[in-house]
């Protein structure tokens, strides 16, 4: 049997007593490239954030390779939504990537030559090496997203969580990013992506989870990415909507 990378049991999350995630059970096998899809407000980002212990759930549990997240931090890399940070922050692209190494360094210890070298390599992988000293507000949206991706790569994790990495990026960057994600999967990593563009799901991903407060379905794209599940998730007759 294949290994389970992430297991979520009975997870319920509420903001001000209003549930945004309701009794989620989810098993993500190792080595898949998975999309989480669902309408706005479906709780996609919240699901990732509660798996990563950023948000406290009111019920349920999460296991990363069988253990709580707190013990497995170093196995996990996270790319938040680009819009969640202030890009006017006084720092450079290289420095942002170096932040990815802070987790393995732990408290107080400073990044050194080894961390810098790894960060430069990550920047090169996403094609941003020539921008390493650029102030981050001077980068385009796609370049900022690449820097974020490099920051995750430098964490050298087994599992990658990405919150809408394709939002506001141009076609070239989108292809560059998806190619890197596919490479990660080839290397046996597990990649979980909050995704909006349903058209590209079959092309980009091999695994998919439909979410709308409750979990609608999860499994291989070729088996479950169908009109039935789309309709259940989005609440409209999806085929008709697309044909319009």
């Amino acid at each position, binding site marked *: 049997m294949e290994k389970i990378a992430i297991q979520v049991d009975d997870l319920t999350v509420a903001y001000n007593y209003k549930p945004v995630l309701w009794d989620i059970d989810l098993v993500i096998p190792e080595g898949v490239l998975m999309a989480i899809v669902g309408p706005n407000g479906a709780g996609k980002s919240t699901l990732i954030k509660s798996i*990563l212990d*950023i948000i406290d759930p009111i019920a349920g549990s999460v296991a990363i390779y069988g253990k709580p997240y707190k013990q497995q931090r170093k196995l996990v890399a996270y790319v938040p939504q680009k819009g969640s940070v202030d890009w006017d*922050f*006084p720092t450079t692209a290289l420095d942002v990537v170096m*932040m990815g190494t802070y987790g393995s360094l732990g*408290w107080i210890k400073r*990044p050194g030559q080894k961390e810098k070298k790894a960060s430069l390599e990550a920047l090169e992988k996403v094609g941003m090496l020539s921008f390493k000293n650029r102030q981050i507000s*001077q980068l385009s949206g796609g370049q900022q997203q690449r820097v974020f991706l490099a920051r995750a790569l430098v964490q050298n994790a087994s599992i990658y969580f990405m919150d809408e990495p394709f939002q506001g990026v141009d076609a070239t960057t989108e292809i560059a990013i998806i190619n890197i994600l596919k490479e990660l999967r080839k290397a046996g990593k597990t990649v979980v992506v909050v995704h909006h563009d349903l058209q590209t799901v079959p092309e980009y991903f091999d695994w998919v989870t439909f979410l709308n407060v409750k979990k609608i379905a999860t499994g291989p794209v070729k088996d479950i990415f169908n009109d039935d599940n789309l309709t259940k998730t989005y609440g409209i007759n999806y085929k008709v909507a697309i044909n319009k």
Partner: protein
Amino acid sequence: MTAPQIEIQLIAAVVAIACAIPGVFLVLRKMALISDAISHSILPGVVIGFFLTHDLNSPWLILLAAVTGVITVVLVEAIQKTGLVKEDTAIGLVFPALFSIGVILIAKNANDVHLDVDAVLLGELAFAPFDRLIMSGLDLGPKSLWVMGCVLLITLTLLILFFKELKVSTFDAGLSSALGISPVIMHYGLMSISSVTVVGAFDAVGAILVVALMIAPAATAYLITSNLKKLLVLSILFGVFSALAGYWMAHLLDASISGSMTTVLGVVFLLVYLFAPRKGLIAVMYRQRQQRTEVSLLTFLLHLNNHQEENERHINHLNEHINWQKVRSKTVVDLALKNNMILIDNNVVSLTEKGKEFTELALEYIITNKDENIEPMKEDFFLFRG
């Protein structure tokens, strides 16, 4: 300079440094208003601490008052979390409530306490040298210098130890949390340090002006640099400069020291706002003017590029064709000539090779909006620097 004068300036400089450091992070976290709230709401803590210790410079008083500062932050967040009011409203609700308790406490006990509202609000640096630290008969200098010196030492130590943690939790709280660097701990750590600093500086510069010492230097430095370390250093320099210049201004005018310091802080900010090399008002206006000219230049080159017929390219008819006034046309033609982009032969203007190349590159940039194509041109033209 007399000894007390030197001591006052030393205290002023130490206070300025101690305030500037947490101030940088408050500004970056968009929490400048919180420092205002803390500086007022610590008053009941100061008053109660004073009843207990009868010493404005006692470490116990400082700790007690700093706790009140942290309580302010907790209360603001609790009110905000109800979702019924926004953060600014929550701040506006909490600090006057706590401050007023302090005011009533002072008024009720005014007879036996050497503490009045004026001193609390404005502070009095001039008196600082009178309260001295004396150990076994030895005069070690003004007490407030020791107090602020200790606060500064603690702040500096924490800053150096936790620089990377402060940076990542300020820039990206989500990542910070996922990495195991709790943004909550960093937040309350910063709030505690800010509270301690405010209380320590309180005696010297008062509740209102301590806010200026925290926020103004960081806001000023932010206009000049986009490097966090430089931001810290520049904030400290601006703070110390304003504190010392303020002292001498007060000396000359025979006015309040804290008032003069804050005035200098304001003037320094204004000057930097006007003259900062990149973000300053004058630089921005100059850049916009250059960009306007360059857009005109580009329009002009495109016109030449699009028209082979000579009558469209005649120097005397250009105004009519592009619908510009004479002055603007002349500026543009001069600029194009200076850059060897056009040739004027027999009053007919035509593009040079360089002009053609430039036009094509610029066109491509406008259409694709891709930076790579114009990287080498950025140095020469404002237009392409975004």
